[in-house]
C-alpha cells in the first residue's frame, strides 16, 4: 500500500447503484430505482466529509457501497490509490481493517446475544491484532476507556446500556482496528441532544488523536457544520454541491443547497416562528442528466449542465 501524500485516502469515481425490484406475483413489471447515479468525491487523510441531502437520496447506499457491504452497479472506489471495487473477499480484508462503519441505530447494530466486550474484541480476533487473551482484554479495556466507557461494562449485554452508551460500544468496535476511515451513517439521529454531544465530541477526539477520517452522514446540519471539514449535498442519487463547510453554509450555490440551509431549524423560538424556508421544486430545477460537477471556486463544486 503506497501512501503518497497527494493521493486522497478515499477516492470515489462515478459510483452507481441501481435496485431492481419485482412487482406483482409474476413480476413482469420490474421497477428500477437508481439509488446512486454517478457519485464522485474524495476524502483526504484525517478529513471529515459531511454527506447531507434529501432523504432517500442515496446517502446510506453510498456508505454501504463504499465499504463494499453492497456491490456497486458501476463506478470505482479507490482506497489510498488502490482500486477496491472488484477485490475478492480475501483481498478485501486488509482494506476492511482501514475502513469501518457506525450505523444509525446503535441497538440494531449490536448482537443482542453477545456481551459488548466480546463484540468489541471480535475485530481483534478476526484480524489477529492481539493473539492472546490477556492482551486482547487489555486492548478492549483501553478501547472502552477511549470511548468513555467503564471497562467493567465489558461483560454486559447490549440491552443493559443506554442509547448513547450503545453507540459508544459500536464506535469502540469500529476503532478497534485503528481504521483510517469511518463511515458514520446517521450515528446520532436516534439520540437525545446531550448524548449527541457526547458522540460528536468523541468523534472529534478520535479524529484528532488517532488521525481518523470520516464520511459523516446526517440530517442535522448544525451538527454537520460543527463537525465537518467539507460537505457534500446529495439529491436523488447525485451530488449537487460539494465544498468546504463554511463555504457551503455561507455561500451556497445550488438551489437545493440553499433550500436545505434555509430550512435548518434553530432552537430560538422567536426566530423560528418568523422563518420561511426557500422552497425547492425538484421537477422544475431537476439537474440535467448530463450535468457534471464543476469547480466554481477553490474546492467548491456545483452540479451544472455543460
Amino acid at each position, binding site marked *: 500500500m503506497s501512501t503518497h501524500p497527494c493521493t486522497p485516502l478515499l477516492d470515489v469515481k462515478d459510483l452507481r447503484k441501481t435496485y431492481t*425490484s*419485482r412487482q406483482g*406475483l*409474476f413480476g413482469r413489471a420490474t421497477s428500477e430505482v437508481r439509488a446512486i447515479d454517478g457519485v464522485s468525491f474524495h476524502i483526504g487523510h484525517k478529513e471529515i466529509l459531511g454527506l447531507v441531502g434529501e432523504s432517500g437520496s442515496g446517502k446510506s447506499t453510498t456508505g454501504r457501497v463504499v465499504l463494499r457491504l453492497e456491490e456497486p452497479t458501476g463506478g470505482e472506489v479507490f482506497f489510498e490509490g488502490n482500486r477496491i471495487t472488484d477485490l475478492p473477499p480475501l483481498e478485501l480484508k486488509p482494506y476492511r481493517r482501514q475502513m469501518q462503519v457506525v450505523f444509525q441505530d446503535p441497538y440494531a447494530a449490536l448482537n443482542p446475544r453477545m456481551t459488548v466486550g466480546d463484540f468489541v474484541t471480535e475485530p481483534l480476533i478476526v484480524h489477529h491484532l492481539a493473539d492472546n487473551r490477556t492482551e486482547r482484554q487489555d486492548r478492549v479495556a483501553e478501547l472502552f476507556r477511549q470511548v468513555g466507557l467503564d471497562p467493567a461494562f465489558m461483560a454486559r449485554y447490549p440491552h443493559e446500556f443506554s442509547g448513547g452508551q450503545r453507540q459508544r460500544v459500536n464506535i469502540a468496535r469500529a476503532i478497534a482496528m485503528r481504521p483510517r476511515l469511518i463511515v458514520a451513517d446517521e450515528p446520532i439521529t436516534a439520540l437525545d441532544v446531550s448524548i449527541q454531544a457526547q458522540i460528536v465530541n468523541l468523534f472529534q477526539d478520535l479524529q484528532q488523536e488517532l488521525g481518523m477520517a470520516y464520511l459523516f452522514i446526517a440530517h442535522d446540519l448544525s451538527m454537520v457544520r460543527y463537525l465537518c471539514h467539507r460537505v457534500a449535498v446529495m439529491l436523488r442519487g447525485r451530488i449537487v454541491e460539494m465544498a468546504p463547510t463554511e463555504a457551503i453554509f455561507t455561500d451556497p450555490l445550488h438551489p437545493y443547497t440553499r433550500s436545505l440551509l434555509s430550512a435548518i431549524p434553530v432552537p430560538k423560538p422567536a426566530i423560528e416562528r418568523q422563518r420561511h424556508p426557500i422552497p425547492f421544486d425538484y421537477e422544475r430545477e431537476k439537474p440535467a442528466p448530463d450535468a457534471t460537477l464543476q469547480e466554481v471556486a477553490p474546492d467548491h463544486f456545483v452540479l451544472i449542465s455543460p
Partner: protein
Amino acid sequence: MTRYMAAKFGEALIAIWGVVTIVFFVTRLVGDPVALLLPVGASPEQMQALTAALGLDKPLWQQYLTFFWQVLGGDFGQSFQFNRPAMEVVLERMPATIQLALVAIVLGTVIGGLAGSIAATRRGSVIEFVVMTLALLGQATPVFWLGIMLILLFAVDLGWLPTGGYGSPSHLVLPAFTLAVFVSASIARLLRSSMLDVLKEDYVRTARAKGLLPGTIFVWHLARNALIPVVTMIGILTGELLGGSVVTETVFAWPGVGRLIVQAIETKDFPVIQAGVAMIAAIYVGINLLVDLLYMVIDPRIGGRG
C-alpha cells in the same frame, strides 16, 4: 419470473431423480423379493429363475441404467406383487389419499388456526391454558391409540359412523378427524408462538392506534404476518399426509398410498416402492413450489431479490 419457474421446475426434476435413485439403491441393499414371492419349499433353482426373470441378477449399475431409461419413458416397471405397472397401482390409491389428506389438512388448519389464535390473543387466560393443554395432548397422544378409541366410541358403542373403509363421506369422518388432531396440535402451537411474536411488532400497535376493529387487525395485521412459519408447517404436513399416513390408514382400513408403500417395502416390491416414492417426491416438490409462491403472496418482501 418465467426463468425462475423454469429453474424451480428443473430443481424439482433433479430432486425427484435424486429420490428415485437413492431409493433404487437403498431397496436393493435392504433385501430381496424372491424368497417372499415364491411359496415355501421353492428350490434355490426356482429362486434363481425368478431372480433372473425379474432382472435382479444383473450388476446393479446395469439394472439402474435399464431402470433409468424406463423411467425416462414414464415406465416404473411391473409390480412384483400386483403383476401390473407399478405406477398404475400407485395412482389407483391416490384419490383416497388425496381425499383424506385434504380434508384432514383443512380441518386441522381450521381447528389449529382457531385454537392458536385464541391462545395467542387471550394470553394468560384459562382458555389459553385449556387450548394449549389440548394441543400438547394432541401431540403426545399416539395416533393409533386415538384412532382405536374413536372407533370404539363412535362406531362400536354409538354406531354413528363406520369403523373404517373407504367410500362415503361418513367413512372419512373418523380418519380425517384423527389426523386433524395431530395437524391442529402442531399448527396451534406454531401459530400461537408466531402470533405472539407478531403481537410485539410495532405495526400491530399502529393498527390499534388507527382504531381498526379487532377483526380487521386480526386478519390483516396479525394473521397475515404470522402465516409464514405456519404455511411452512402446513406445507410439510400436507406433504406428509399426501405421502400417506400409515398408522391412520391401517387403523381405519383406508386404502391409501402410505399403506401401499409400506406393504411394498415389506414385500420388497421394488417397482411399487419406486413409483410410490417418486410420486411422493413430486408431491413434496410441488407443494414446496406452492409454498414458495404463497410466501411471495403473503410477504411481498420475499422473492424481491429472486
